[in-house]
């Protein structure tokens, strides 16, 4: 993943001792929309270790590039909570606009780009100054946000317009609109930055966009044995660090798909809980974590054997999982 890359660069250049203090023990953090809380899972025991109270209706979460803080977008009180990973406590709030859903950070971590589903805008937020720098009009119900590796471009998916807006971060203008599948949700960017993968919740597919030509180059359709196309609702997506494997949560089909990126083919499908959305890998990529929004739990999958090894109950309507290891 992009963050991992930046992390490596950062770790190499910054004090190693400091980073060791960050988090000795590997954990997974899961936001739950109806509990105003984050569940902490101990990855050694795969058990719930604690709860971190946060702002109202926490949804997307992301680590800062130094991995010392977790930013949490809260849909109902229009803020981002800043949680210190070492102490597991909220250390500040960043005001956001109405209905923040998904965000991404610039590579330097200084700027936050967040989709505001109620205002149909992408807001540009100065993290240190805690203030809004700009807002850019996009199609209705914007969701996925992804910043390019060089920080010059940000991609925003509009669920209603079924489009990906391409925004130039320097002049903060929409420079391109790319029609993708129905109800596009989330993004993954290949490590070389050449391909943008977009999950289409009502298209039962992933649209693959060439970032060089700003064109749709392929549509990967999902099929799940025993499930109808209308029940395949892909949302969450992540890529392995080498960009060779993709993992997509298939929503109501209750499966997660393993995809070979080069051939663009589904190679495995693993049965998980109800409405599988957010997916995340641990650092060694031996385990995949899948959040099940309608069964209030998280499935742990052994990646090598493509088998679910454990299901852990988390909060009500879990949204996003972030692994800190």
């Amino acid at each position, binding site marked *: 993943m992009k963050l991992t890359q930046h992390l490596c660069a950062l770790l190499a250049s910054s004090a190693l001792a400091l980073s060791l203090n960050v988090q000795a023990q590997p954990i997974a953090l899961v936001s739950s929309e109806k509990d105003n809380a984050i569940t902490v899972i101990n990855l050694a025991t795969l058990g719930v270790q604690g709860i971190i109270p946060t702002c109202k209706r926490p949804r997307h979460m992301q680590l800062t590039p130094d991995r010392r803080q977790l930013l949490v977008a809260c849909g109902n009180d229009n803020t981002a909570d800043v949680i210190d990973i070492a102490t597991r406590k909220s250390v500040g709030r960043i005001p956001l606009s109405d*209905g923040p859903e998904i965000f991404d950070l610039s590579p330097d971590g200084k700027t936050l780009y967040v989709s505001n*589903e*109620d205002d149909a805008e992408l807001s540009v937020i100065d993290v240190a100054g805690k203030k809004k720098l700009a807002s850019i009009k*996009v*199609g*209705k*119900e914007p969701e996925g946000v992804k910043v390019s590796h060089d920080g010059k471009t940000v991609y925003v998916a*509009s*669920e*209603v*317009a*079924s*489009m990906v*807006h391409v925004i130039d971060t320097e002049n903060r203008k929409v420079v391109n*609109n790319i*029609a993708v599948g*129905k*109800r596009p949700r989330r993004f993954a960017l290949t490590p070389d930055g050449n391909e943008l993968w977009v999950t289409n919740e*009502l298209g039962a597919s992933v649209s693959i966009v060439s970032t060089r030509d700003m064109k749709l180059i392929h549509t990967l359709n999902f099929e799940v044995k025993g499930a*109808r196309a*209308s029940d395949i*609702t892909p949302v969450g997506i992540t890529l392995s660090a080498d960009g060779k494997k993709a993992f997509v949560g298939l929503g*109501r089909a209750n499966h997660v798909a393993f995809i070979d990126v080069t051939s663009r083919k589904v190679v495995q499908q693993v049965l998980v809980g109800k409405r599988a959305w957010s997916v995340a890998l641990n650092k060694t990529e031996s385990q995949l974590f899948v959040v099940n929004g309608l069964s209030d739990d998280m499935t742990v999958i052994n990646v090598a054997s493509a088998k679910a090894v454990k299901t852990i109950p988390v909060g009500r309507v879990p949204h996003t999982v972030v692994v800190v290891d």
Partner: protein
Amino acid sequence: MRLRLFGVLLAALLGSAAQALTWKITLLEQADNPELDRTRLERAYLGHPGGSPSEGVALALDEAEFELKAAKVDVRLDIVPVAGPEEARAAALRADKAGTKILLSNLPAEWMTTVADAVKLPVINLSASADRLRERDCRLNVFHVLPSERMRADAIAQALINRKWSQVLLLSGTSGRDTERSAMAQAAIQRYGLKLVASKTFKLSSDPRERQLANPLLLTGGASYDVVWVVDSDGEFARTLPYNTAAARPVVGDAGWVALAWHAQFERFGAPQVSRRFAKSARRAMTDHDWASWMAGKAIAAAAAAQPQANTDQLLQVLGSINLDGSKGVTLQFRPWDRQLRQPLVLTDGQGVLALLPLEGILHPRNTLDTLGADEPQKLCKTRP
């Protein structure tokens, strides 16, 4: 004129470019529609309109700004009030001559069929829910966005089956509409293997000589049942029925549990954003009728984006094959056999949404949504496309 202004405003909103195509849409509305009378709107009966359908249509067109811009289409919405079927016919012919692409109908059933017969244009029926418009009186050029009465009755029956409340006492009003809808309720009761304990007629009255017809306690006494199903298109009687039955039994149909296309409290699939946008632009809560109008607007935008140059025949085809996102979790299409928009329904008590129908476990060989309403093998629309 107010109506013209609206169209111009919409065109301006959509950012008209010089070379853009203009798609003219004409909404035919019943003048002085009693359903939109202020005192009726204030009652806010479930399943009744909350205001003009133009608000839902305009919202959908506004939301489609990016797609319409990409397709270089300006959509203009004209609203024409008509006072009777003949006037509706004349207005439809005028609109056709003036280059209208699609007609929207917020008219009573008979007026709507008169309009559909007068023109070849696609007509989107926004408000007439009678099943005969999808069956023996179906027309090739009519698309229905609001669920039919049979769809709503099937949904209620599914919910009763799920609860194992199989003994049904049916109370129906005396209007022609109530008779039609009562027949749909009875068909659903039979279809889902429920048992009709008794079917009684009620009448709104305070006349002591009519108390057997008017008193809820007398109407619901002397029988054993699991549930009371009330068919009341007017709404006044049904509203007083819950907690007012002789036996402590739930009420369904037009009070208690009601199956609708939409409710503003629906929480899933991005629905709150839609309801919020509607409330912001129309300054009222989004009803099931508003959702249907919004879907009509979305269908127009989708067709314009897909084939800006489409002629009438092509347009009928395009509309017949589009997939729409109605924020109900699945894509929606017009059924090829009767051009009814297939869709999940919400089960509501008016306070919130209790379930989405069809319920899990209800099966169908192809699409579970087709367990609601007339299905293909029944071939009820003889002039099917």
